């Protein structure tokens, strides 16, 4: 590998020396996460930590919308993705970690503290909430994304230290009435005709479109573009792959919002107390709880 030659066509835009210092965790290496990881390697990110659930192997039904293919059928996705990425940037340091982020919080926290940014590419709320909590606690930038039902569009959010966290944004989006995912068309999951829908039915390009926006937000973050920069003023991108009545006025419509931090947020808010006051009050509560329990 000749590093100068590899980055010859991108060096004018992005200095590989800057990207080399970055450590990105990609949590969830399905269709979306795998693409974010692939782009990160092409930016020249020095260390990429791929995190997936234990025993998460590439199955045949994954292939049609994944960067991996038949060559890797049956292999753990993280390991196969590492090989795939190294093929386009052999200089990238890649760690593959198999874990359940919801059950193994302490380990997740340790990993996140090492990172310059975390990409949440999982599709269930408990895992998103756990990742949010740990990123907020560590003060590490979190970029999350989601593809809406049917792949009609999606969202990408960025949580920076001191800004609205994922929980603030989720509460704002759900309860403000400003946005309701149920407006998106409901789809039938043809891969599972007898059961409850277990995965968003979407085409490869629908997912890739959102994943590339997620990678772009990661790139802007790496380049130090924060809320005051004109190229990304806001913290939440809404993107419509297709026209959806009441949600996306036309195909490829996009919007960038600045979702405010909720000062009363139980995750990122301080509750109006100093750390010393919090610790003293918690100690008092716990002491009384133990007494009354025994």
């Amino acid at each position, binding site marked *: 590998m000749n590093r100068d030659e590899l980055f010859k066509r991108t060096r004018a835009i992005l200095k590989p020396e800057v990207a080399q210092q970055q450590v990105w965790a990609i949590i969830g290496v399905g269709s979306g996460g795998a693409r974010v990881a692939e782009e990160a390697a092409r930016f020249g990110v020095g260390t990429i930590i791929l995190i997936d659930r234990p025993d998460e192997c590439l199955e045949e039904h994954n292939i049609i919308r994944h960067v991996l293919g038949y060559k890797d059928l049956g292999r753990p996705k993280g390991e196969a993705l590492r090989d795939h990425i190294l093929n386009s940037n052999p200089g990238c340091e890649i760690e593959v970690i198999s874990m359940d982020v*919801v*059950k193994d*919080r302490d380990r997740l926290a340790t990993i996140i503290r090492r990172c310059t940014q975390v990409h949440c590419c999982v*599709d*269930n*709320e*408990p*895992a998103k*909430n*756990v990742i949010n*909590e740990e990123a907020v*606690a560590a003060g590490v930038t979190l970029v999350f994304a*989601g593809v809406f039902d049917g792949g009609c569009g999606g969202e990408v959010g960025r949580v920076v230290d001191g800004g609205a*966290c994922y*929980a*603030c944004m*989720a*509460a704002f*989006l*759900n*309860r403000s009435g400003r946005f*309701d*995912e*149920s407006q998106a068309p409901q789809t039938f999951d043809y891969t599972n005709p007898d059961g*409850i829908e277990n995965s968003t039915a979407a085409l490869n390009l629908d997912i890739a479109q959102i994943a590339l926006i997620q990678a772009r937000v990661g790139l802007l973050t790496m380049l130090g573009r924060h809320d005051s920069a004109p190229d990304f003023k806001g913290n939440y991108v809404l993107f419509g792959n297709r026209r959806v009545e009441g949600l996306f006025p036309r195909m490829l419509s996009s919007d960038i919002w600045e979702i405010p931090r*909720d000062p*009363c*947020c*139980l*995750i*990122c808010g*301080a*509750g109006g*107390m100093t750390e010393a006051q*919090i*610790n003293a*009050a*918690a100690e008092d*509560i*716990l002491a*009384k*709880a*133990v007494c*009354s*329990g025994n």
Partner: protein
Amino acid sequence: MDSKRLVLEHAAMMERWSALEPRLRSDASGQLHWELTLHAEGGNRLPIKIVYPSGYPSDAPDIVALTSLPSGTPHLLPGNRICWRHPSESKRNRNIWCPSKDTAALCVGVAQRWFYAFLVWLSTSKWPVPDAVSN
């Protein structure tokens, strides 16, 4: 649960439900739960505990009835747990558990509502509210 969350949980519970004299308890493993008794007309009472799971606050609390309930009670999960959440809530939807806003104090209101519905069911054999999900 971190210290800040614990303090905010305690404050929220006392602010809304101190009349029910909720008591925070800790079991041998350090898992925290609230114990309190719900009251309804006719002297009916339902003692409950609201348990903070290990994944709290990403995971919502469990509401457990501390008295044996008749077999066939609707909307009751194994372990005497009151069913109060929709199975589809692994996706973000309206009115799901929201860790940035909700505390165990929310569960007291939920349990109270379940208790009223249960009493109606006892006398009419019909569950009067549509939104709880049958086991």
